[in-house]
């Protein structure tokens, strides 16, 4: 599907101060009607974190709204400038805390692109496997909280039950449930444990029927359909103009998935479909994400089949200027000891220049722009956070909608405030 570039359509995104100005000059009109200014958040159960929305209401209808972000600003990008490239991997985990592996991946992939560093095939396959499990993990939290916001509480408990299984896999692999920090420039941090592959296979077999269970609860549920069908429609042209990405874009009928259009880590060799919606409403976004979970299982299974053939292959590059030598080598090789010492005290030095890398995170296109000045610390790292850019569509989508639908809209956009504010 070819879409032509639009000049900016009639999209207005007010700022919080503009909404505040309405409150100052809020006189009743000739019918005696007066708009009401509502501050929703930053402590609100349905804003998925510390998002504040300044909403101008006319009765139950949203006249206009402005997201007020920054309540979780963490200074991650600035902090990265003070650390070596490897040390900053732990900081990237904590941006989009529902999909830490995607953040790790985009950061190390950008550095690899900058350094023209190859990654062994087994590491690439493992990355694909982990990225897809992360996608399932993230979508489960989205599904649970989205349903919870629309008062379908059971789905939350169902989704979190399966999520624990994934967290157990991550814990087995890395020792941490959420903040895994498992990716390294040139490969992965360490090899997978022996029973990792059978555990993941068990999980996939266990998980696939559970997706049907979620769909049984929601897809044909009359209440769910009434709250989601035809609500919050974004057409394809607007979705592109607003910079939406991920399932938010695909639900509007735009077939754009970076795993297909700009493949990385060998995604072009996997057989899978990209679910695309039609109406661009909340229901289509829901259907797209649920279907994506099934496609992720499909990709993960293919990756597992490949990994079984790759037993014993390296999990990280043997370029000693980037990846540390194995501990056993240090005891007899002076050169290895020097490499180890240099890497841990100083870090590696990418060449001067910059690189942009984008991958398909569960939320959309997450990008990382790295600028190197040739020193062991990056000169600048910027993340193109999909949550931040998807969130800016909210004023456009919510305009004229009911206040009650606003809760559903926020959840359907699936923002993670850690990533919005960074």
């Amino acid at each position, binding site marked *: 599907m070819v879409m032509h570039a639009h000049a900016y359509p009639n999209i207005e995104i007010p700022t919080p101060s503009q909404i505040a100005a309405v409150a100052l000059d809020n006189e009743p009109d000739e019918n005696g009607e007066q708009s009401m200014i509502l501050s929703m958040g*930053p*402590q*609100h*159960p349905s804003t998925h*974190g*510390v998002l504040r929305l300044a909403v101008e209401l006319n009765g139950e209808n949203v006249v206009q709204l402005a997201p007020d972000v*920054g*309540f*979780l*600003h*963490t*200074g*991650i990008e*600035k*902090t990265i400038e003070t650390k070596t490239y490897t040390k900053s991997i*732990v*900081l990237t985990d*904590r941006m989009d*805390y*529902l999909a830490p592996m995607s953040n790790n991946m985009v950061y190390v992939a950008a550095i690899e692109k900058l350094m023209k560093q190859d990654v062994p095939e087994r590491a690439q396959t493992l990355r694909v496997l982990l990225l897809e499990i992360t996608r399932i993990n993230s979508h489960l*939290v989205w599904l*649970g*909280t989205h349903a919870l916001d629309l008062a379908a509480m059971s789905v*939350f*408990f*169902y989704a*979190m*039950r399966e*999520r*624990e299984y994934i*967290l157990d896999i991550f814990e087995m692999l890395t020792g941490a*449930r*959420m*903040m895994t920090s498992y990716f390294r420039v040139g490969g992965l941090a360490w090899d997978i444990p022996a029973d990792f592959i059978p555990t993941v296979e068990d999980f996939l077999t266990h998980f696939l029927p559970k997706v049907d269970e979620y769909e049984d609860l929601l897809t044909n549920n009359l209440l769910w359909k009434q709250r989601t069908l035809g609500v919050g429609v974004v057409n394809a042209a607007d979705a592109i103009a607003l910079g939406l990405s991920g399932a938010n874009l695909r639900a509007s009928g735009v077939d754009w998935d970076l795993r297909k259009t700009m493949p990385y880590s060998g995604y072009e060799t996997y057989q899978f479909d990209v679910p695309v919606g039609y109406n661009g409403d909340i229901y289509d976004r829901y259907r797209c994400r649920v279907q994506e979970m099934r496609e992720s299982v499909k990709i993960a299974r293919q990756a597992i089949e490949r990994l079984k053939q790759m037993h014993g292959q390296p999990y990280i590059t043997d370029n000693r200027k980037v990846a540390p030598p194995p501990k056993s080598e240090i005891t007899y090789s002076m050169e290895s000891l020097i490499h180890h010492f240099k890497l841990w005290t100083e870090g590696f030095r990418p060449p001067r220049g910059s690189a942009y890398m984008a991958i398909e995170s569960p939320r959309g296109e997450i990008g990382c722009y790295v600028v190197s000045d040739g020193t062991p610390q990056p000169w600048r790292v910027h993340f193109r956070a999909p949550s931040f850019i998807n969130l800016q569509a909210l004023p456009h989508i919510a305009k004229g909608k009911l206040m009650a639908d606003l809760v559903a809209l926020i959840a359907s956009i699936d923002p993670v*405030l*850690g990533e919005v*504010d960074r």
Partner: protein
Amino acid sequence: MGLEEKAGDLGIVTTTLEGVVNWGRTKAMWPMLFGLACCAIEMMAGQASNYDMSRFGLELMRASPRQADLMIVAGRVSRKMAPVLRRLYDQMPEPKWVVAMGDCASCGGVYNNYAIVQGVDEIVPVDVYVAGCPPRPEALIDGILQLHEKIKRDKITDHADGKPVRIEQAERGALKPLG
């Protein structure tokens, strides 16, 4: 235990008022439904199927601070969030308790920078610190059980002059001022 012996097997137990009040306070704490960052996801996991914090009486997460008596600060607190957090704390009725969940809330964690408050105890008094980045749900539950132990040692006379302990602490200068 003289009374029970004399009363025989009548199902009467004697205890202190303090014991009953503190027991009541520990068995039905209402935490505030308030998540900040990554730790909030583990707090959600603690509420969900596998860990089920309601086993310890923490079933009802209240979205309104007016109805809550336990604030779990789950995540990093930015400079922009700090006044909001303090206001939420001030809106909670006495008696109230604070659990700093995770390294960021306890001491700033990995973020020693311009944006993050280096420990939420700079703005609110913390009863229990839970370590971890993020702490496992078990760790959070353990932290809350530690808080229960602490509450059981509370004296009613702490509140006897009608002045809540925290305000009294603030007047003594035990709490740092905001800003």
